[in-house]
């Protein structure tokens, strides 16, 4: 593939999975340093772990920065426009940011999934495209996460636990203001949820359109705003929101559950783990997925087109996807892995009880389509909330 990388100091086109370390390690050592961005506040400790291992192994210094995803995206876009060197070499960015970043030409054109040795067990579902967008391996997920329904089992008997979207609605109407639904535009668990609702209620033509990954963001927005197909979704939300609490974000939902104001809510699996570890959720907190599936997603690590330390960045991403680190991440952060050889069985039972049970995951995990989620969220605002 043609490369859009500006600062290559080695012949990238010659690199294969087999000769990767032979070519890249010396080049990376020559570069001597690599800059990494992390957009997820809760991942700092994980990256610290990785960096310690990386620096010990290769003796290459990692300059690490926690960033605000949106700001960093805009920074990189601006840099790209100006044709300057990128300030970062390896950027851990939201999976949903790909369309924005790639359309601005920020993503470096490297077939990572085919040349990184540690990606030999990479899930083919994400290897060449992400949520229906082809990226040719340049934007590989290194962390998977799953939206889910979380509940405090102290207040909900196992028999009462909703299993479908209809049951969830019924439960909410029976327990007014005890279900928290994250506003889609303020948290992925909400965005994932609205898309999951749509997946559940739309059929035929409508469903085809809903899962048409070739739609651009504008087209998706147009469709969501105008299509009759979505009436069932709006109806569902109208009823749901008259009985449930609309919250201002993932953390907001969890916080209200910790305050024992809500008993159930839309959540991210990995974030729940972080909160449990920080004792900000009760021990009795559990997760489940609804029948017909809820959205799963992930975050990627990529090399910007104008990165200065490409070789070192490759080496870092390679290590991030390595089995050791992925296993560590799974146990400690409930961060699922795109590696096919790393399954839930590896998790200790102590941790496992806070994660989605294997009866529903990965069975009920549906692929995300963030542009559509976003479109649905905006349309929800317009058609339901603002009426």
């Amino acid at each position, binding site marked *: 593939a043609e490369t859009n990388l500006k600062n290559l100091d080695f012949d990238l086109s010659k690199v294969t999975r087999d000769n990767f370390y032979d070519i890249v390690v010396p080049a990376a050592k020559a570069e001597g340093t690599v800059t990494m961005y992390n957009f997820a506040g809760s991942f700092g400790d994980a990256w610290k772990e990785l960096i310690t291992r990386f620096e010990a192994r290769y003796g290459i210094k990692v300059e690490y*920065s926690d960033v605000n995803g949106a700001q960093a995206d805009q920074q990189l876009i601006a840099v790209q*426009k100006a044709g300057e060197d990128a300030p970062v070499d390896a950027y851990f960015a939201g999976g949903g940011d790909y369309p924005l970043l790639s359309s601005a030409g920020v993503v470096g054109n490297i077939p990572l999934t085919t040349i990184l040795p540690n990606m030999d067990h990479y899930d083919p579902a994400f290897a060449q495209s992400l949520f229906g967008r082809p990226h040719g391996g340049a934007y590989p997920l290194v962390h998977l996460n799953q939206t889910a329904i979380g509940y405090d089992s102290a207040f909900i008997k196992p028999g009462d636990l909703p299993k479908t979207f209809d049951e969830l609605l019924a439960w909410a109407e029976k327990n007014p203001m005890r279900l928290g639904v994250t506003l889609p535009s303020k948290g992925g668990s909400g965005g994932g949820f609205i898309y999951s609702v749509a997946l559940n209620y739309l059929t035929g033509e409508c469903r085809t359109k809903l899962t048409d990954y070739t739609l651009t963001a504008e087209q998706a927005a147009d469709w969501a705003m105008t299509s009759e197909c979505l009436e069932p979704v709006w109806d569902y939300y109208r009823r749901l929101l008259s009985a449930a609490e609309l919250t201002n974000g993932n953390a907001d939902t969890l916080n209200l559950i910790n305050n024992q104001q809500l008993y159930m809510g839309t959540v991210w699996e990995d974030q729940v783990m972080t909160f449990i570890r920080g004792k900000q959720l009760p021990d009795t907190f559990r997760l489940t997925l609804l029948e017909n599936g809820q959205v799963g997603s992930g975050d990627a690590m990529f090399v910007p087109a104008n990165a200065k330390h490409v070789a070192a960045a490759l080496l870092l991403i390679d290590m991030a996807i390595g089995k050791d680190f992925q296993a560590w991440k799974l146990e400690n952060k409930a961060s699922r892995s795109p590696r096919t050889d790393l399954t839930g069985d590896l998790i200790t039972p102590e941790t496992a009880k806070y994660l989605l049970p294997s009866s529903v995951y990965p069975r009920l995990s549906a692929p995300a389509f963030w542009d559509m989620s976003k479109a649905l969220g905006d349309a929800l605002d317009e058609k339901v909330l603002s009426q």
Partner: protein
Amino acid sequence: MTILAETLPTARARVFQEDDRLLVSTGLYAALGLTIALPLVLMFLWSVADGWAPPHVIPRDYTLSRWMDMIADPGLLRAALNSTVIAVIVTFATGLIALPTAWAMARFPFRLKRVVEIFILAPVIIPGLVVAVGIGQVFLFLGLSYSMTGVILVQIVGTLPLMIRLLTAALETIPDDLIHAARSLGAGTAGVVLHIILPLAVPGLLAGGLLSFIGSFEEFDKSFIVGAPVIETLPIKLYIFLNPYSLQLPVAAIIAFILLLPALIVFVIAGRILRDDLMAAGMGKL
């Protein structure tokens, strides 16, 4: 009229008395405690609480590990240092740039003054985000991105308006005759500026400097786009944890304290030199 005077004696005026004074101060300090001290204390408790769910009014278990983790980050110290250096330079540079302009605003009558006044106030009115993106572009073009200089230059946009206004207010109070007297005693322009205007602008400079310092210390949007990741300030380092959609209260509480502490210290120290009348003269008229 005499009738009036005779019917009124019962309407004895309440005069402020010794016991009222005690009442007032008790009331005011109680209000202060409830609205300012209590939230701060609770925030501190959150930062050291190891789990804090209802019905507990006060956490049962405590931990310092989060503080330790946070403070152990070597980047934090560097960021704090950066922030301080930047804030100091921004404060001085702002004063320097603002002085002549404030002098013109205070001393020269001219027709477009109102327009200039609004323009100077505009950065306070226009959302920072709108400007930040534009500036990012300009700075990349000028090669100022990722540099201390760039961050300083961009922060001054935010601190300049208040400084100019406060200095203008301070300079307006210098009588013309003082300048004339200095000139009649043989001082040239430089002498007048150095020995008369600058010393007399000190209250304004202090008030403006204080606000500039705090403003610079807390600025995020513009600094990030221009400076990160090479120049990391405290807010850049910490705001990620304050992402409103995923913030964890205990961590956020620690961050809040780290961000707040220097500002609070400066404010408490400088509260003494911050002259209310100047603040009011600078901001209390449009």
